[in-house]
């Protein structure tokens, strides 16, 4: 038996009183060893900030395990400037489709007014160049698009912008 799935619809403009959680942007509590801020901005095809997006991330723990003891999940709405921030730790490498290890990464979902489906991307890390080089998912994405998937170093962590459309459009995946 295979049932038809329930289709996706937009999150709409009116969710900021409903979906954000108090600790939503904290994958780990402040003060956790190795914790850093992943910050960025969501912009549209005109380069304007998207102030009504909701980002979610999902990741393994630092040992590369998807484990019930580690929430691994963050949710953060964008602010008036389209910015978000998530406090997390770097995940360990997890197995890929062929058994080889994938480079450390977060899965990211983007919901926003105007989007009828969730957009899915991945956040890799600039300081994992050797692992990124052999990552099976990244390997299929040619430069310069590949660079949109790699978070850059910043003062208190990493920067990862999401460009929904246009020049340097972020790579999004069908899942």
């Amino acid at each position, binding site marked *: 038996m295979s049932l038809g799935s329930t289709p996706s619809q937009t999150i709409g403009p009116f969710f900021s009183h409903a979906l954000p959680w108090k600790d939503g942007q904290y994958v780990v509590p402040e003060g956790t060893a190795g914790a850093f801020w992943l910050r960025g901005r969501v912009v549209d095809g005109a380069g304007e900030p998207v102030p009504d997006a909701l980002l979610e991330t999902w990741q393994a723990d630092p040992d590369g395990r*998807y484990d*019930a003891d580690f929430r691994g999940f963050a949710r953060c709405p964008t602010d008036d400037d389209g910015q978000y921030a998530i406090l997390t730790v770097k995940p360990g490498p997890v197995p890929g489709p062929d058994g080889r290890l994938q480079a450390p990464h977060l899965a990211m979902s983007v919901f926003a007014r105007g*989007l009828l489906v969730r957009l899915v991307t991945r956040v890799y890390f600039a300081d994992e160049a050797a692992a990124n080089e052999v990552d099976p998912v990244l390997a299929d994405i040619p430069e310069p698009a590949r660079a949109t998937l790699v978070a850059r170093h910043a003062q208190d962590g990493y920067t990862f912008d999401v460009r929904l459309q246009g020049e340097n459009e972020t790579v999004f995946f069908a899942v």
Partner: protein
Amino acid sequence: MDPPVYWPDYKSNVLRAPKRALATFPSTSTELTGPLLGDSLVGPLDYDLTRQHAGEPLGERIIVHGKVVDASGRPLRNTLIEVWQANSAGRYPHHIDQHPAPLDPNFTGVGRCLTGDDGSYRFVTVRPGAYPWRNHDNAWRPAHIHFSLFGRAFTHRLITQMYFPGDPLFDQDPIFNSVRDPAARARMVSAFDLSETVPEWALAFRYDVVLGQTPMEDT
């Protein structure tokens, strides 16, 4: 099955839809696992949107219930469902919503619950009103309740809208009609359910949710 990424009938989509085709890769453990959320997020009365304030909200009290299953029909148990909706006059308590309909001091319109062992869930709320928006001339959204679901895997994650049977606004709504397959569109419409309707108290609507694409739809 899902709406297309680019759907310009919905004006807000035009500058936000990516232009490049979505990239594909075989699902890995990242996609086949997902967060287990809920215990700390759900209060005992969060399922009842009519009991969050000192008084009862105005409007037609309704029960919304159903089952959450995966594409093979297996119940998805202990998974978080979040809902949010306009009040019976069609107004959200959100600073952006300024259309001339009254707020209800007894209705926030936000609920949460976890599914039971058989994937079932139940909310008590009031029937939301239709409301105008500026997408096109004389545009009105059909009455709907927003649903957010997690299921068991990152691939299950879904945000959708539950509609009410026979809504006269369906034909002119670009969001509802962004789902091109009529059978898939019908899966977003709840069914009136006399068997769960509580005499002298509330009408019931049944809304079952199927999470996850079937392999055939992946092609």
